[in-house]
């Protein structure tokens, strides 16, 4: 009997399963993540059909974009085997810096936005210097930096009671995220789309991308192949700081003002997005495509859960988030296991 000609082999599922099995582990995880996203939307829609209305989907995607942008930085850092725990307060402090400098005036945008981005790059670079020059573990360095940014912000704004603290985000910037160039599509999604394309390009086609994967896979081998491993580390952490700044501006634009503790959910969310997206926590493997799916998952899941009106929505959200990451780790963790 010729192979492939029996009754069981004609089933569409068999060929699909075979195609999935041939994918690399990362691609498998990415496919799984997107499938899970679709499943989530279906579940939500089944409960209430308004869930899958176009406007609701785009709102949820907009919320996902904030996680996604922060997670872009986290993706870079995790790809080289590090981690960035300073995202929450780099995000928050730079959002506040942006609003208190621009003071709600469009005329200030041309310098206040680049200032915030540059500050993000700078803080990230300092993180990397501590790691690279003094062998400070990434966990500790970025955790400490988070505290520093928190204290600096609270101190400089006297507990967020400064007169400029309530400044609004300049209208042009607000429009860049909440406006609609295309009908019913928030501009923030376009911003995210641009970021997705750029990050994807860098990781797949640029010299930096190749070097990032090399360092993440095996620092020593990369070093012996002439890669400037220190330089790559600095660039990657700087990028993470920059993406945190962008997220801060985006969030502030969305809420039209900066607030305290606005960055707190984004530490966990950014790490979740990367892990759910199939990247290895040890580095060297993963794609931003996966992180995007992970960002959507970690944002839509609480929205679906909220439909069931749990008595304590914040608690349920946090517990669900934590459980999801553990499940993802256990699923993909086979590669991440220490011997």
């Amino acid at each position, binding site marked *: 009997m010729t192979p492939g000609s029996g009754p069981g082999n004609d089933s569409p599922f068999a060929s699909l399963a075979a195609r999935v099995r041939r994918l690399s582990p990362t691609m498998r995880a990415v496919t799984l993540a997107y499938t899970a996203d679709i499943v989530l939307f279906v579940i939500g829609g089944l409960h209430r059909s308004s869930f899958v209305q176009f406007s609701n989907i785009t709102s949820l995607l907009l919320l996902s974009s904030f996680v996604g942008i922060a997670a872009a930085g986290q993706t870079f850092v995790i790809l080289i085997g590090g981690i960035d725990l300073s995202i929450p307060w780099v995000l928050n402090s730079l959002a506040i810096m942006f609003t208190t400098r621009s003071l709600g005036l469009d005329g200030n945008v041309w310098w206040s936005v680049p200032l915030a981005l540059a500050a993000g790059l700078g803080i990230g670079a300092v993180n990397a210097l501590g790691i690279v020059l003094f062998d400070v573990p990434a*966990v*500790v360095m970025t955790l400490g930096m988070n505290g520093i940014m928190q*204290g600096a912000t609270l*101190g400089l704004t006297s507990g967020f009671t400064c007169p400029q603290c309530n400044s609004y985000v300049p209208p042009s910037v607000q429009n860049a995220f909440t406006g609609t160039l295309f009908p019913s599509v928030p501009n923030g999604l376009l911003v995210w789309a641009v970021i997705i394309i750029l990050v994807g390009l860098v990781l797949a086609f640029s010299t930096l991308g190749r070097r990032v994967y090399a360092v993440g896979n095996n620092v020593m081998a990369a070093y012996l192949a002439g890669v400037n491993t220190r330089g790559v580390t600095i660039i990657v952490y700087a990028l993470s700081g920059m993406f945190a700044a962008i997220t801060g501006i985006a969030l502030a634009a969305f809420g039209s003002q900066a607030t305290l503790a606005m960055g707190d959910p984004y530490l966990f969310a950014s790490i979740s997005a990367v*892990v759910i997206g199939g990247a290895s926590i040890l580095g060297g493997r993963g794609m931003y495509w996966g992180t995007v799916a992970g960002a959507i998952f970690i944002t839509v899941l609480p929205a679906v859960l909220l439909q069931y009106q749990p008595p304590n929505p914040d608690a*349920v959200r946090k517990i669900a988030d934590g459980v999801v990451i553990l499940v993802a780790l256990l699923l993909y963790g086979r590669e991440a296991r220490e011997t």
Partner: protein
Amino acid sequence: MSATAAPAPRGRFSKRMRLRYYSAQNVPLLLSLGLLAALLILYYFLFIAREGRAPGNFELTTTVNNTLTTGLAAMGQAMVVLTGGIDLSVGGIIDMTNAFAAVHMGTSTGSMIGVSLLVLLLGTGAGLINGLLVAYGRLQPIVVTIATLTIYQGVAIEIMNTPGGQIPQAMTDMFSGTIPRLGYLPNSLVLLALLIVFWQILRRTPFVATLYAIGNDARAARANGAAVVRTRLAAFGLSGFFSGFAGLYFATVNTSGDPTSGDTFTLTSIAAVVLGGISLFGGRGSALGALVGAFILNLILIVLFFTAIDQEYTDLFQGLFLILAVVASVLVGRLLQRGR
């Protein structure tokens, strides 16, 4: 050296020799103690300059009271760090346990004892969950404890939505009060002494010997037959226990509960561990260093605020000193290496 030499005379390890070796091998701890002493002196004189009198029993009591939560959390963190791991869920466990205590503790003696025990059990259980995932699941401690941190924070909010609850006065008196008959000795100081005694006993268990072995070199430890997995599990469990204790203590000091106020203790417990001379890579340092580190951290903050720096900057200094402490320990280590 020959194959058949006469045995050397017994008992020639004098106290002085032992002390000499111990000092050489515990330089980081001694540096920390020195730093603590320097800070105490600084605090003493600054206090006199500001208040016009020497610090008294009240200051002693409040300082120890305010430091012990960090101290307890840091002792738990030390258990995990000594094996070469890290526990980022400490803050979440403290959130959870202090909320639980504040909500459920009644004024009857039975309730006080019962709920206290439950709180310790809760903390230990949370730690064991971490341990199971890390030791048996062989997942990375960083990500696992970030995940469980979030879960425990969620549980804390589930227990208690907003700050509140009530801790019976008797509990507060027991932990934060003083003993009149002993010259108003702070109870917390007694607790501190008990912790030190506890560690001296624990230090002599085979379990802790294995703990240090794993932190030194897990592969070599395994080759020597050590029960690596079980010991790692127990280390996390112990960390949870101490975090639970810290949460209980925190609740009694504040006389109420707060489901999010424990978050800061993740960072401060790690900072205390490093300031106490314990190596983040594992295998080196005394858990007592965690207590020393907690006092150093709090005293630095107190001294800083004497100099009229806004208290809002607290987190900045905690984060800064965490980083500086690690950098200092790395530089000291490099210096010692070059000297050899």
